[in-house]
């Protein structure tokens, strides 16, 4: 079964637009379901929020008053509509633990995770794709075995163990990189960013190269550790796709025309082989926005993952609810964008419809 050179096919914008619209529409019920689930989550959590607020010695009258104030004795669907309204206004309630509005905490934590996930994704894409391409060009070479080995160990590695080893080595023994955290607060007391996008703030608001370096210095180790699994997956996938594409007729034709191997690999093979890899990079990124839990914990990274774990351990409902809602929404949006970009890159999709 021969695949033709799909990257060379023409585009049809009307069909593509309808595909994109259909995808957007399909995401709406998903987002609604996510909002309902995260709303119910708060009600399903063990423990009574009023009892948590007032302590064990609360009188029934005081409890009833708090329930009234929190709106907990109204019908569930009314509460849900209220919740949805609040969320759309950016009000996620208050954390029982810190007493601060959850929205204020998320403004710091979400960007921290985005920064980390972006860095990891860049590392994973560069390393994974290069490894995969090099391995496929020379099958059964040292590079190929290295690629397979990394791909296998990468997905089998307990990330918290790798994190520990990296910390002990790079931060402990060699003293090259810091153990954790985003920056050394003691040295940068004038740094009071408005959001958690520290690197962007350091560059644009503060214009301080030293601070930017300090932040990057702290970002390096966690980003590399977080990149392990996606690097393995991307390398494996790139290698498999490249091997398949390189065996196609049009590659042989290109070679027969007298083209050298390098341009054939870059212009003909990679363009076709990387289409599915891009989707997988998108999905991986979505996973990382919420799935960086372990890496964040190891490196005391104040992101969304550590926020969720902390909320689970002390059963702090509102932060948990808000994080779940946000992470699932991110995930759907990232998948949607990946899907749309996929349909732009791969014109074949148009002929299959929305399936």
């Amino acid at each position: 079964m021969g695949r033709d050179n799909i990257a060379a096919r023409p585009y049809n914008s009307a069909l593509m637009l309808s595909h994109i619209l259909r995808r957007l529409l399909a995401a709406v019920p998903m987002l609604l379901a996510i909002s309902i689930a995260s709303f119910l989550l708060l009600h399903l959590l063990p423990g009574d929020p009023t009892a948590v607020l007032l302590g064990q010695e609360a009188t029934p009258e005081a409890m009833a008053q708090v329930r009234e104030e929190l709106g907990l004795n109204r019908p569930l669907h009314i509460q849900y509509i209220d919740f949805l309204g609040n969320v759309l206004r950016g009000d996620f309630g208050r954390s029982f633990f810190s007493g601060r509005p959850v929205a204020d905490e998320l403004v710091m934590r979400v960007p921290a995770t985005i920064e980390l996930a972006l860095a990891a994704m860049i590392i994973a894409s560069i390393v994974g794709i290069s490894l995969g391409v090099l391995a496929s060009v020379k099958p059964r070479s040292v590079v190929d075995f290295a690629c397979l080995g990394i791909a296998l160990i990468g997905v089998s590695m307990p990330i918290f163990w790798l994190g520990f080893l990296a910390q002990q080595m790079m931060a402990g023994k060699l003293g090259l990189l810091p153990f954790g955290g985003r920056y050394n607060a003691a040295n940068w007391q004038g740094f009071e960013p408005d959001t958690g996008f520290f690197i962007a703030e350091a560059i644009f608001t503060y214009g301080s190269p030293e601070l930017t370096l300090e932040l990057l210095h702290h970002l390096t180790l966690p980003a590399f550790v977080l990149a392990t699994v996606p690097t393995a997956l991307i390398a494996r996938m790139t290698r498999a796709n490249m091997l398949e594409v390189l065996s196609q007729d049009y590659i042989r034709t290109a070679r027969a025309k007298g083209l050298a191997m390098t341009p054939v690999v870059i212009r003909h093979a990679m363009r076709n082989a990387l289409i599915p890899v891009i989707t997988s990079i998108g999905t991986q990124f979505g996973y990382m926005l919420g799935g960086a839990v372990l890496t964040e914990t190891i490196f005391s990274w104040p992101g969304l993952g550590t926020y969720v774990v902390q909320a689970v351990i002390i059963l702090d409902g509102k932060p948990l609810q808000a994080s779940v809602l946000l992470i699932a929404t991110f995930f759907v949006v990232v998948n949607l964008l990946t899907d749309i970009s996929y349909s732009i890159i791969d014109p074949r999709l148009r002929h299959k419809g929305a399936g």
Partner: protein
Amino acid sequence: MKDTLKFFMRHRPAQAGALLVLLVVFAALAAPLLTPWGPRESVSYEFFASPSSGHPLGLDGQGYDLLSRVVYGARTTLRIALLATLLSLTIGGALGAVAGYVGWWVDLALMRVVDFMMSFPSFLLAVVMVALLGKSLDNLVLAVGIVGAPLFARQMRAEVLRIKSMEFIESARALGYSHLRIMLRHVLPNCLTPLIVLATLGMGGAILDVAGLAFLGLGGDPFDPEWGLILKAGWNSPTQGSFQVGVAGACILGTVLGFNLLGDGLRDWLDPRSRQK
């Protein structure tokens, strides 16, 4: 059967995987024979003592024998991962089979549920499940098992759809067999192999998830013999506990690697394209 053996004899990675898995299973089964101490038996007050002839891996931070902790840990970890994988297989398999066989709106509804569950990073979903269920090793089974189900559901549905359109199913229907009989006797047995591959690979993932959740402190009792907890305990005193962290991590890596190699081997065996090579 002869083919299988021949394939296995030529597939080095699968052999390595099988060896690793057998080693861990043996350690788990023979735990009381391998070490005279129980997993929670205080041996001495020399916390983090170095390996000696009596204690091949030394002692941990509670003065327990580390080797006993690790071999009994193999029991705990394997038991939890196995139960979780079986749970995923059962729930996911049942959902996927019903969706694929019945079709129509049942398929649509069930697959929406699956999509919905997959709209959330699975490890984090497990963390949230533990919040709902309570922190304990037994609840990790439920959390990891439920979170893993959607993958099995998708695979099962695809298999059932493939088998359903085959001629022997049509003839079974022409003979007037009931849906239940066709499903259980004709469709399911033909779907099992790909699911077994998925379950083998799923064991690796389940072990990582269980250890990760325990590491985060969601496993309940921190002194239970479980690899994630052992690793965490060593982590908490990084200067003395490094060796303990190293041992526990190596156990997790080795076991997961074993299941992944074995699963990859099984998949190669099932995939006729790679079989010919």
